[in-house]
């Protein structure tokens, strides 16, 4: 070490001592050199037992990331020790789906701006009965969207950050739901400024989603069965929309929901391959939820009536007859959709039909 500061050697010796380096003062004839330093081992020892947190790409994911890797980037060199992250979803087979990276990329590219994506200034002048029906349906949608926001948000905080793409996907999903809450609320308030009703039975049904701690079961009940049924519901609203704003908000939400359902199905398909007990547990979850809700009143009567009126398009006996038939048709479509997805998860046809019939009458 060479240098001109008069206190250089004093400070150098003190600093090297604290860092585990050795110093030796230079002789007079060492030509400008004030002290010789022999490097200690501390900075090397700190990393001696370091390990890589897998490799950065999705192919570098390990079966069971260590808890002390914490929030470190996947593939980072990890100094051993330190606090453990409070994640309990840490098994690749429990969390991962091969589709997650591409679904996340798709989700990120498909984000839309609620202010721009809907023509909010389009003319909406409906008969009061029809407008009331739209407001009631929007009120129902908002309530369900809030459940769909909270469930992935809670889950993602429990997942080991090593499974980055799954967390990113769930974060995008939660952000999708946040926008759905916004656009449905905005449509509801577009003309009058008063929301519709919320029934105990609707909130009871959603409460059972929020309390499901198992990632697979929560994903199954919410995404495969609930959001799956919502795909049909949103198609129905699109088809019978009495105004362009109602149509656009239903379409926008439907695009996102299709992705949410796809991840739910992919995740459970992946898991079914490694866990033969999965189907039995899924079945148990549906049965248990059915038992919990057995005394619940089911779908809010106001929502059912609103759907009939929406499909009727007019408050006439003929219209109501058509509307009622359309809602019956909707429920058949929902049932077919659920059965189809249950079969894709590996349930035999008859069992799929049986389970679909046990699904909550609240749709979600």
């Amino acid at each position, binding site marked *: 070490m060479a240098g001109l500061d008069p206190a250089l050697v004093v*400070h150098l010796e003190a*600093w090297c001592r604290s860092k585990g380096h050795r110093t030796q003062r230079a002789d007079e004839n060492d030509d400008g050199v004030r002290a010789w330093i022999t490097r200690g081992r501390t900075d090397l020892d700190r990393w001696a037992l370091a390990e890589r947190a897998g490799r950065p790409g999705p192919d570098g994911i390990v079966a069971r990331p260590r808890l002390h890797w914490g929030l470190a980037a996947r593939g980072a060199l990890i100094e051993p020790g330190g606090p453990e992250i409070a994640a309990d979803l840490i098994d690749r087979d429990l969390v991962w789906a091969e589709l997650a990276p591409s679904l996340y990329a798709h989700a990120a590219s498909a984000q839309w701006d609620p202010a721009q994506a809907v023509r909010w200034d389009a003319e909406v002048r409906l008969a009061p009965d029809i407008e009331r029906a739209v407001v009631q349906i929007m009120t129902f949608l908002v309530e369900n969207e809030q459940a769909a926001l909270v469930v992935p948000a809670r889950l993602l905080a429990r997942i080991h950050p090593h499974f980055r793409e799954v967390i990113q996907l769930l974060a995008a999903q939660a952000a999708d739901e946040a926008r759905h809450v916004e656009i449905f609320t905005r449509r509801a308030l577009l003309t009058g400024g008063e929301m519709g009703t919320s029934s105990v039975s609707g909130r009871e049904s959603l409460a059972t989603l929020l309390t499901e701690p198992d990632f697979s079961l929560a994903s199954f009940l919410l995404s495969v069965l609930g959001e799956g049924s919502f795909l049909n519901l949103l198609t129905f609203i699109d088809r019978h929309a009495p105004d362009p704003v109602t149509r656009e908000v239903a379409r926008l939400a439907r695009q996102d929901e299709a992705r949410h359902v796809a991840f739910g199905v992919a995740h459970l398909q992946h898991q079914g391959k490694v866990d033969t007990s999965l189907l039995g547990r899924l079945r148990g979850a549906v049965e248990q939820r059915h038992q919990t809700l057995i005394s619940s009143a089911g779908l809010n009567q106001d929502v059912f009536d609103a759907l009939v009126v929406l499909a009727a398009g007019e408050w006439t006996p003929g219209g109501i007859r058509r509307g009622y038939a359309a809602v019956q048709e909707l429920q058949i479509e929902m049932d077919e959709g659920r059965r189809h997805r249950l079969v894709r998860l590996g349930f035999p046809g008859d069992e799929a039909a049986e389970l679909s019939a046990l699904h909550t009458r609240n749709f979600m």
Partner: protein
Amino acid sequence: MALLMGAVAYDPKVVTIWGGFRSWFNEHGFPFDFVLYSNYERQAEDLANGRIDAAWNSPLAWIRSRRLAEANRRRLTPVVMRDTDRDLTSVIVVRAGSPYKDLADLKGETVAVGAIDSPQATLLPCSFLAAKGLQPGVDVAVRRFDVGVGLHGDHIGGERDAARALAAGTVAAACMIDSNHLLFGREGTLAAGSTRVLAQTPPFDHCNMTLGDTVSTEVMNGFRDLLLTMSYADPQVRPLFDLEGLTSWQAGRTSGYRALETAVDETSFYSEEGAVAAVGYQP
């Protein structure tokens, strides 16, 4: 039975440090426990009397407990010390623009020191000045900054106040350990380039882990050997080492305490038998 060590709680981190060491020792099959003291004097007495088996001793506490023990025909052994306890120096610092060129120029001036019981900021520098012909209280006035008395200078407050007095111009020079001169420059207590090192003491040693004769040679050796295996590469050990300020344990030695023994005798800080004799010292 667990080996019982005393340590002085000069900072809340002491609980973290020795709690961590306690876990590590017990996990490695060596039963170990500790008690905390508010000051070094009671700890030195308890070690010398065999009420505790070991003590994490300041250099001054080592001297006192050794004197107390030997007066009672007991024997204490410094088994290990931190690598950072070896070959420290203290410096006597003046303001950069002051006229003092060497120590003799301080004659008739005032020198700031740390707490009455600080080896590095008071006892050793004062003895050093005396050896250079500047008798404290006679040739130079001494202004003491008594912060954390009883902690044998482990509390940095006295040294920092001495440095502040130097910066404020109320004293001609201030005494501090070399690493604190570096620290005070970094933290801004002494502005960069505002001070000059007028003199530096010869190297001396600091703390050690002292064991009493209440434990067998076998236990003592087992304890020492286990300490010497502790590695900075061990993720459980590393944070404890970082907190306690060492990178490895070294064998204990007494050769680095001669200057302090001399300083203690010159000022009658302790008697030959280890009684506290310093005037105005109230730990």
